[in-house]
């Protein structure tokens, strides 16, 4: 049994963060550093007629004012439809029109405000439906290649079709349809966005960036260097301590390119930081979506078809968030067993703020619709909501209509576990007048990374120094989720060193090996697998060196032991006969032989072996190994919706008991249960943090959070007006349970767990509300005002003391 695996251990960065030593982007300063401020658009859609920067340039302390007119164009975005500084027109309120570098942030802000911009307003579009109307103005007249566009529909295609949905629909014993919507959501990172860009004298760039994709960012920034005439120069991306990522770091951002342009223009390090209101207004939130769904089943409750149509308001530019449907397809095709499926989506350009990725990446949006609608189907079929999920449960070994190859699957245990822990069997008979109800919802997500790029790999370099310290360099980013904790424990266990002797190298493209990025719940899975491969190499090298060196080391150890303990009886065990690479074992920095009597001098400090090997006469060696792991998965064909995009899949179910105040519309969570198939628990403490945090976000998604806009302008850019749950709102009994299915593809059997925790929360709560009061709200968040309106619509002011569906 491993001494560290599955045992609670504080994260290696915990003390630094708790004592204020961790260095965030806010803390980093460079000699001669300037501060940047951006002038943003004042229109949702307008042609730029002129920009006058004279007044700004004359302000004392201003070092540069840049616009599209005086800098090279830098294109960015997954569709290359965005530019760092807008020259021709603005397409959203947050469009970057000009930027300033100055000696302090206040001067920079003052100068940015002094820039005069003349606009010719254009008709603007604020919802997908009007953007798709015939004759609607175009957000983009041309694509990145200059070809004219004729519609606001984005050129991205994600479809799936299997079986015969028309036949299945007409044959279904029961079928229900519904339209479900989700709002714009702010990721609410505790650490706001920022970057610091600096050129060295050879014009190579170093950028401290709040990114989850240091290596793809390096590629993006190198491409920007080419665009400003610095082809062949390199970018070094350093990732400081991050106060949350949640998907905000999956793209490179205009503000980063603006910092680069200003550093290039001034020859000085330039830092840009967003304050909280800027983070709300100028960083991309989670997309808003509408999902139209119908599902049907036979008389026995077996699902026969599922028809899903998604509309996403993408806003003005394409980010990676525009590939949400790639992940929506997973639950759409593969949550429960459904033979006949249609999935399609339309992503629409509008003049709203452009949206980007957030934790769950489309899955919470789709699961919200799917699991709410499944309860409606259960109601129509007269089947208990838990029972209908059991009937259609996924099983290990199945291949889903999308071609996902399910390896391990603990969904049945998750559903039944929630039922048991929530007291589902006794769910009837809540006290009269107490409008309480229970609900549940399940989820499936990529558990073995998600291939959305030609490589889905992670590299790890391990290095042992002369004192037995193990350095782990990984391209994976710890943005607070605890990747470094998982790597520390896995490294200690797999190499055989004390966890306190494991040091995780700061993420830096100049010292860490390539990694596609930390998203899709993949960090611990892919970096963990790469680490195990590297650890194997390390042990092999150590044990091979030990064949020659161990006997001498033991002899030395024996002599000094006997010197210290002269009365020791001689051991008559011939340990020399046991020396073979496969007989060595390394634990807690101690090298020894397997199956030998407990003779003290047979245990050799790893550092001694390393030094002996390092300084060996006639050619020493160092202990540095690398490994590169690319999971066994396929890049799906998105037009057909086919392909096994992950090495394995994570399943889970959450159950909720709520109490509804039918006078005020308030929903109180009485208790929550979460049962997740995590494959294997690596660090229960870090895992609990991940799940509790995700559930808090899920509760916010369900009940409180929404970015409110009026004609494209954000009205609630602060935490007074944008509500995330506080400790009070999540102060309910939370029962967490893990199913360990020991996934063969996972490191130590573990699956990815970063996103699953928030995915089923909102529909579980909505289903519990329905159980309590017989009313279904189909738009998130379920605010008291919305729920009350639904109650009044249903009961016309005469809300019964007891819900009609209460059993």
């Amino acid at each position, binding site marked *: 049994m491993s001494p560290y695996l599955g045992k609670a251990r504080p994260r290696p960065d915990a003390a630094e963060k708790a004592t204020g030593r961790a260095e965030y982007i806010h803390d980093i300063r460079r000699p001669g550093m300037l501060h940047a401020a951006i002038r943003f658009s004042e229109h949702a859609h307008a042609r730029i007629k002129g920009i006058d920067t004279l007044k700004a340039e004359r302000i004392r302390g201003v070092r540069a004012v840049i616009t599209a007119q005086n800098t090279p164009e830098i294109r960015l975005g997954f569709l290359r439809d965005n530019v760092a500084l807008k020259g021709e027109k603005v397409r959203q309120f947050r469009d970057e029109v000009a930027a300033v570098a100055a000696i302090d942030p206040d001067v920079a802000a003052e100068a940015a405000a002094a820039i005069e911009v003349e606009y010719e307003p254009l008709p603007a579009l604020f919802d997908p439906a009007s953007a798709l109307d015939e004759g609607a103005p175009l957000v983009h007249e041309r694509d990145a290649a200059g070809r004219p566009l004729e519609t606001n529909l984005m050129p991205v295609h994600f479809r799936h079709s299997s079986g015969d949905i028309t036949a299945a629909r007409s044959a279904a014993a029961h079928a229900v349809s519904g339209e479900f919507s989700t709002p714009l959501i702010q990721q609410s990172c505790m650490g706001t966005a920022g970057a610091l860009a600096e050129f060295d004298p050879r014009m190579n760039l170093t950028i401290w960036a709040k990114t989850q994709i240091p290596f793809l960012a390096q590629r993006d920034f190198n491409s920007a260097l080419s665009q400003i005439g610095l082809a062949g120069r390199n970018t070094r991306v350093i990732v400081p301590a991050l106060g949350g990522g949640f998907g905000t770091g999956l793209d490179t951002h205009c503000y980063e390119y603006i910092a680069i342009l200003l550093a290039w223009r001034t020859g000085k390090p330039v830092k840009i930081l967003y304050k909280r209101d800027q983070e709300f207004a100028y960083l991309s939130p989670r997309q808003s979506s509408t999902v139209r769904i119908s599902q049907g089943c036979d008389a026995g409750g077996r699902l026969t078809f599922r028809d899903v149509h998604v509309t996403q308001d993408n806003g003005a530019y394409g980010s990676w968030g525009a590939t949400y449907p790639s992940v929506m397809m997973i639950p759409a095709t593969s949550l429960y067993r459904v033979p006949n499926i249609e999935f399609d989506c339309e992503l629409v350009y509008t003049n709203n703020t452009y949206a980007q990725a957030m934790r769950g990446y489309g899955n919470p949006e789709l699961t919200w619709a799917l699991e709410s609608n499944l309860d409606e189907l259960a109601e129509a079929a007269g089947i208990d909501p838990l029972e209908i999920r059991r009937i259609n449960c996924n099983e290990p070994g199945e291949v889903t209509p999308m071609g996902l190859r399910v390896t391990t699957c603990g969904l049945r245990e998750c559903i039944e576990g929630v039922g048991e822990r929530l007291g589902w069997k006794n769910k009837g008979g809540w006290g009269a007048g107490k409008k309480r109800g229970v609900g549940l919802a399940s989820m499936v997500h990529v558990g073995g990374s998600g291939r959305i790029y030609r490589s889905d790999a992670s590299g790890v370099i391990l290095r042992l120094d002369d004192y037995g310290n193990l350095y782990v360099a990984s391209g994976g980013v710890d943005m607070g989720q605890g990747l470094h904790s998982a790597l520390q424990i896995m490294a200690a266990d797999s190499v055989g060193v004390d966890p306190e002797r494991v040091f995780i190298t700061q993420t830096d493209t100049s010292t860490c090996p390539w990694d596609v990025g930390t998203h899709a719940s993949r960090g611990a899975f892919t970096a963990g697998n790469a680490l195990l491969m590297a650890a194997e190499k390390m042990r092999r090298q150590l044990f091979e060196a030990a064949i020659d060196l161990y006997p001498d080391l033991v002899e030395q150890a024996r002599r000094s032991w006997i010197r210290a303990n002269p009365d020791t009886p001689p051991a008559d065990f011939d340990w020399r006969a046991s020396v073979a690479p496969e007989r060595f074992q390394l634990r807690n920095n101690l090298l020894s032989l397997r199956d030998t009597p407990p003779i003290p001098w047979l245990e050799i400090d790893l550092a001694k072996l390393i030094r002996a090997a390092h300084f060996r006469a006639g050619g020493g060696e160092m202990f540095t190994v690398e490994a590169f792991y690319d999971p066994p998965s396929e890049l799906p064909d998105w037009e057909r919706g086919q392909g096994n995009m992950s090495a394995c899949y994570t399943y889970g179910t959450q159950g909720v008991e709520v109490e509804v105040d039918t006078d005020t519309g308030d929903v109180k969570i009485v208790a929550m249960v979460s049962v997740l198939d995590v494959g294997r628990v690596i660090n229960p403490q870090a895992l609990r943090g991940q799940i509790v945090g995700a559930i808090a976000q899920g509760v916010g998604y369900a009940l409180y959070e929404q970015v*409110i806009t009026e004609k494209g302008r954000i009205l609630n850019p602060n935490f007074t007006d944008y*509500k995330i749950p506080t400790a*009070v709102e999540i102060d309910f009994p939370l029962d967490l349970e893990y199913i360990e299915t020991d996934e063969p593809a996972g490191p130590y059997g573990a699956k990815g767990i970063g996103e699953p925790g928030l995915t089923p929360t909102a529909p579980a709560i909505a289903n519990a509300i329905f159980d309590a009061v017989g009313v279904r709200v189909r738009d998130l968040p379920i605010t*008291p005002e919305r729920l009350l309106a639904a109650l009044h619509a249903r009961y016309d002011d005469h809300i019964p003391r007891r819900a009609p569906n209460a059993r």
Partner: protein
Amino acid sequence: MSSYHRPPSVAEALRLKRELPGSSFIAGGTDLLVQMKDRVRQPTALISIRHLSELTRIETDGGARLGAATPLSDLADDSALMTGWPILGEALRDFASVQIRGSATIGGNLCNGSPAADAAPALIVLGARVRIAGLDGERLLPVEQLFEAPGRTRVREEELLVSIELDPPLPSGHGVFLKKMRTAMDVSLASIASLALLRDGRLEEIRLAAGSVAPVPMRLHETEKVLRDRPLTPERIAEARRVARDEVRPITDIRAGADYRRHIVGVFVQRALEATLEKGDR
């Protein structure tokens, strides 16, 4: 902001205020500093008053006198005050966060002029008065008349609110404070305070006030009329709920719609009266 002053007395503070046009008094600073950061207010100078002992005393001898610069947490910790006027404790209990309550002052909460000031409805139903000092002397004003418009009170530019004065508690009065927020850390979207004196099933006295549902914290006179000197019955309560709903003048903003706020005021009036009815004639 060019200077910061720490005068030794109220008189000196008032003199400084006259001398420094565009200056502002500062006590807890929990609203003012945020407004200064956002450049909503840009005072030329700050005159601190929170260190003045004459402004941070709590005196209870039958009635009560609360120094205007007393932090809310000090009020909540004063057992004589909380026992005599429990409704004030209810209004302060869920006020913002522990940190804010430690800094924000009772006078500041009123002088900020917010329609959502949680202390206001409670003080209005208690019949509290504010003592306002100027260079020419002092005057008393009922809290009910203090508010002029959102962000504006009747404390004039060169005056300072120095204390809040409470009459002795109504014998056997029953007070209730209710407020609705979106989460535990929020500006209330509707609040009500009720002070009732029930004798032999009749409401001998009833005072109702509401916050966040009009340009200023308001007394619900129409609703009181329906109730005063009449038997408190479920029918009467239902009527009061309807009248209160019509009496308030809320707006729709990002926190809630006007109709929802009206509805909540009605529900809260009903709940407050039901609580009084349940408590009975004791």
